[in-house]
């Protein structure tokens, strides 16, 4: 099960935070800070797996992260997920964002955080992987966006 998905930039500013387990608001912020602290210390050429910080379950949970340009994508998972599989999932997620936003960059994520949530909701539900086919995800997201647009016109 995926416990949390966090996206933050090189300075630790959160760009997206989704928790699949309940934590209080303060704890959530602390987790984001702690995760940033752990992940930013890492060199470029070490492996992408870390033991979780104290707040998010300690050594039972792992942090699997990837660094793309100015953003860190961090998935906190427990032992039931395949580590290499999650790495691939992050890649699919980023490629999907890329398709949806056309050469996605940090600004897109900043200004359209609700859209990013919608895309994520089509991929991961309740902490479990829902859909991994990029085209399928994009089709569904597009259809829903169309529905929204048609309502605005009314």
């Amino acid at each position, binding site marked *: 099960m995926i416990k949390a998905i966090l996206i933050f930039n090189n300075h630790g500013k959160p760009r997206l935070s989704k928790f699949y387990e309940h934590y209080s608001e303060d704890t959530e912020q602390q987790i984001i800070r702690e995760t940033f602290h752990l992940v930013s210390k890492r060199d470029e050429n070490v492996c992408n797996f870390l033991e979780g910080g104290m707040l998010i379950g300690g050594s039972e949970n792992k942090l699997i992260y990837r660094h793309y340009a100015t953003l860190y994508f961090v998935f906190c998972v427990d032992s039931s997920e395949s580590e290499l599989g999650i790495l691939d999932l992050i890649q699919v997620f980023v490629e999907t964002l890329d398709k949806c936003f056309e050469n996605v960059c940090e600004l897109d994520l900043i200004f359209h955080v609700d859209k990013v949530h919608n895309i994520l909701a089509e991929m991961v539900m309740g902490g479990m992987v829902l859909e991994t*086919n990029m085209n399928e995800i994009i089709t569904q997201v597009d259809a829903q966006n169309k529905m929204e647009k048609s309502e605005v016109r009314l």
Partner: protein
Amino acid sequence: MPAPIRLRELIRTIRTARTQAEEREMIQKECAAIRSSFREEDNTYRCRNVAKLLYMHMLGYPAHFGQLECLKLIASQKFTDKRIGYLGAMLLLDERQDVHLLMTNCIKNDLNHSTQYVQGLALCTLGCMGSSEMCRDLAGEVEKLLKTSNSYLRKKAALCAVHVIRKVPELMEMFLPATKNLLSEKNHGVLHTSVVLLTEMCERSPDMLLHFRKVWILVPQLVRILKNLIMSGYSPEHDVSGISDPFLQVRILRLLRILGRSDDDSSEAMNDILAQVATNTETSKNVGNAILYETVLTIMDIKSESGLRVLAINILGRFLLNNDKNIRYVALTSLLKTVQTDHNAVQRHRSTIVDCLKDLDVSIKRRAMELSFALVNGNNIRGMMKELLYFLDSCDPEFKADCASGVFLAAEKYAPSKRWHIDTIMRVLTTAGSYVRDDSVPNLIQLITNSVEMHAYTVQRLYKALLDDISQQPLVQVSSWCIGEYGDLLVSGQCEEEEPIQVTEDEVLDVLEGLLVSNLSTPVTRGYSLTAIMKLSTRFSSVNRIKKVVSIYGSSIDVELQQRAVEYNALFKKYDHMRPALLERMPIMEKTASNGPTEIVQTNGETEPSVPDTKHPPLVTQPANQANDLLDLLGGNDVVPVIQTTLPTKPASAGGELLDLLGDLSLSSGPAPAPSVPISQPPFLLDGLSSQPLFNDISAAIPPMTAYSKNGLKIEFTFERANPNPNIAVITIHATNTTEADMTEFVFQAAVPKTFQLQLLSPSSNMVPALNQGSVTQVIRVLNPQKQQLRMRVKLTYTHKGSPVQDLAEVNNFPPQSWQ
């Protein structure tokens, strides 16, 4: 009131803030605007306001006042509103607040909505944060959607069902019929989530697992799907870097693992496909490696044939040499899991693993360290220890404690010689001394005491280490204890192992006194040094100096030191005749079942001489607090009556027959009187402690006896005497079986004459394995206040080669010491 600004505007504004304070101000202003807009109950802009609120929530500002607004949005008819509303609900609400229950009705309606996307939203929200009540109410709707032909909804319903099952496990049965057809879907999304659902069901319920294995015969179906994926060639839809839907492949492999675990038939059915996947998968990209990794884990977990296992370990070996750090990490993790079962195969890769200790990556280093410790054995101990000690020197502080403990454990198990052992320990103490766990100090002291021939060498080396550095407390403690014990060897220069150093008594006392005054010493260390100084009073000739030191500390502020000094002073003044006896050399301590430095060794008790009142050598006076802990242990155990009630197959009449023997020890069977054998007087119970193997019973010198030996079953009695109460004899029975078949449902019963009282504790098991492969033990306690000769009648029942066997016997040959 002007229209509330758009989300985009807000974000733009916040980004212009240059300081945290400025940002906070902007946000507070906007919050106020949002609050007043909410108060106006404005439907048009509610969606916009909540979106802004969610953004602020992400930045860390309180947003709970928007919770009810989310509910209103969910209830709206517009899709846009619902979308933001549900998102808000997932981010802001949780099952701990009662507000969330209000959503239930909305979700119910939306689950039946005409638009699939609305249904999807409802499923998503329910699956993310539905509470048990909500799940219970809405499970029926979810189950209905599980059977729909719309694959978009079906896959969401499957994951929602997983969440429902997690929250309310009793509802699992409900989803069973709907799950049946899920695997025949073509849509990969549905397949994927169905496999997740099946996996969850199998993990939660062993009955379900059996059902899937035997009744649905899931394995061939899964194998077929997997085969199609591998053989189908290029399919642009599901392709990821040249491999067809690797995510689904990984999921299926995981489910196969669960199905094949400890089941021969299922494992057999999947052998071929596993071999195929293992050999045919492309390893140039991460996806291929992910599949291989999962395959290896599956092979190792199920009952695969040995050829396949070797293949798996070789794949892991290849992973270890891969340049990609992630792959190496993953390989180390899986090797750690398999090292117990396939030890020899993993040994082949030992050198690569040891190289990983030098890797720069912290995660890899940790894994390599754990694996290295698992690989240490009698053959490679010297080489491995060299590497591990080198690692200990150079590693980060976070590793040092674990590494030090691991080194101690390994050294204890496999030390090729005592000198090597002591050298290794010295090395650890000097390099990582402050990270060593506190309870390793008594362990080390015990080790040193027991290696009698090395005393001189040890004390010399420890003394030299002390001269160099007194900051590492465990080292200092062990050293001062040793100097206290073996100081005479030190000054006499008797060392054989290495060049003896010339040390005078005064120099030694200088060092010890230095410890007492140093700022670096903890109170515990000071205690150790004071006691060491005291002990030297019988080994050295400069008694006056020692007397002076001891009397100075009689007025120390530290209460512990003060007490010790005062008592030692008293020893000099009033009990001088007892001093030599009290302070003489420690005897060799009995080794208990040592589990390494992490377990507190019970026999050590006090390693310093005890207060002058007790005249016994320090070893036997068990410290009071430890005894109390064990008392609690015993008090917590249930008193098991003589007649074993744990095995329900025993007919009740047999018990009565046995009890009848109490009066006259005759075999006549009559009506069963009320059982009078079991006792449960708490004081009686708590007196006898020596049945616990942790205790070292000095007075146990009663020889064991064979009580019964017939038809291959032999029962031996060993005796201990309970220390505080000599009227209680504690007998441990050992039942062994020399025949070729196991004896199952083994029950031992005993009865004694009226003047005795008997108590039987629970047996270790009820199966005596064949060919002396193991034994069943059970403890009997007999109270014999009148010191009469012990007699016992025993009854044995067991099943051997399918037929029940029963036997009665009389045991009369108790050795006299057991009842006198």
